[in-house]
């Protein structure tokens, strides 16, 4: 059956490339489109966040819940824009922005102590008690010059993560 009957034209591909600032090559976009069609099983033009949970590898990822929040109701352009942070061609700034968005649960541009605690909780699960988590987080924040009540904005994230080589990539299979 396959959905490549709804083929992308060259114009579509170029438009999408513009949208994601050339983070992907044209071949990668075609592969991602096939993937998108595979996930969009009802052919409605967008992927319900539920569908991502049917990928076992994704569902067992500790951050799947936070990511699902960001992934709701994506059409193809948004899907590509989302994944563009994982392209080897995207900038460090773009990647840091993405990480910031994962932390910023209420999308108000500020990451609070609680936001960071939530992500830490997802990542450590039952291996740390809530008390330990709060302690570690508070301690580490203080060492970096922040307090428990400070809100981190994007520029703070840039400062903290900026001078490291962030390895955040996912390879798009191109056959």
């Amino acid at each position, binding site marked *: 059956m*396959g959905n490549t009957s709804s083929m992308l034209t060259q114009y579509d591909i170029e438009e999408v490339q513009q949208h994601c600032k050339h983070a992907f090559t044209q071949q990668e976009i075609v592969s991602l489109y096939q993937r998108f069609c*595979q996930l969009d099983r009802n052919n409605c033009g967008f992927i319900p966040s539920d569908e991502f949970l049917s990928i076992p590898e994704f569902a067992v990822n500790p951050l*799947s819940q936070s990511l699902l929040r960001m992934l709701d109701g994506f059409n193809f352009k948004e899907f590509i824009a989302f994944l563009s942070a994982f392209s080897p061609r995207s900038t460090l700034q773009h990647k840091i922005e993405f990480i910031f968005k994962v932390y910023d649960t209420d999308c108000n541009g500020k990451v609070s102590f609680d936001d960071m605690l939530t992500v830490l909780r997802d*990542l450590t699960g039952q291996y740390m008690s809530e008390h330990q988590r709060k302690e570690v987080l508070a301690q580490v924040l203080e060492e970096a010059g922040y307090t428990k009540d400070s809100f981190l904005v994007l520029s703070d994230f840039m400062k903290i993560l900026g001078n490291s080589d962030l390895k*955040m990539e996912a390879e798009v299979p191109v056959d």
Partner: protein
Amino acid sequence: MNSSGVLKSSSSELDLDRPNIEDYLPSGAAIQQEPRGKLRLHDLLDISPTLSEAAGAIVDDSFTRCFKSNPPEPWNWNIYLFPLWCFGVFARYLIIFPTRVLVLTIGWIIFLSSFIPVHFLLKGHDKLRRSIERSLVEMICSFFVASWTGVVRYHGPRPSRRPKQVFVANHTSMIDFIVLEQMTAFAVIMQKHPGWVGLLQSTILESVGCIWFNRSEAKDREIVARKLREHVQGADNNPLLIFPEGTCVNNHYTVMFKKGAFELGCTVCPVAIKYNKIFVDAFWNSRKQSFTKHLLQLMTSWAVVCDVWYLEPQNLKPGETPIEFAERVRDIISTRAGLKMVPWDGYLKYSRPSPKHRERNIGS
């Protein structure tokens, strides 16, 4: 974690059936649990490894690949290929297909007119009745295979009727069963289906001795395990055929085998089936088409070509757990049929991993 109310209880199944799934999952720890002093804010905030894994799973994952049916690529239509193909379509749909339907109908008539009398008249002579019914089932399966012009090559010694042995095979479509049944009348364990297939199951397959299960029943597993054990002990029963993957996979991969068949304490004879996609893809993508449509697709293509290998019987090695045994047999079958092994439970097609599995992933 429910997925649209289809399956609720499989998390316990996943627990018992799967060996250490976290061994297969890439390790996702983003935080080093070092004593204070070494941990910096930078380390805490850097969730990039975990995010990369998540993105990798979104872009491509080994589980969905098992159930992907690749659409045919467009051909180069030119002045001679296109008319040839049109002629082919004409031949397939208007000449070959009606002939096949006719052959199948004749087969059914012969079958029913022999089966029904034998079934009722020979009530008292069980042994004779069973052996006639067996041959009749083999016959109708041959008719089925002929109706899609099945070209099947069998390699290896034919299955023997001995007690305390089970046959396991990889699963691509319901026709696997028919292809194997035409050689030897197996008893089979199947999911009960609705519609005309269910009718066939409850009447004809009963005669070769079949066991039903229901994926959506939690308690079902114990009942089924008991029935399996009873069947295998009986000397008179037909050899039992089990598809341990539990679901149809696209004949390029194998998903994990359920251990039920491997803890019965008997010899396991692996059977590998590989379909040649040259004329038609025999993979039944149950999410995309009903079995009837699938069958019609097969009947309107030139041929279904496949190879069946009957492999060397295996026994549980001393010190081996049933799960290791299952994996070993899966390896044998996959190697023979040229399939890649993936570490996923086939039932994940019908349900979602529970939060417990996410917890386990954190620890690695």
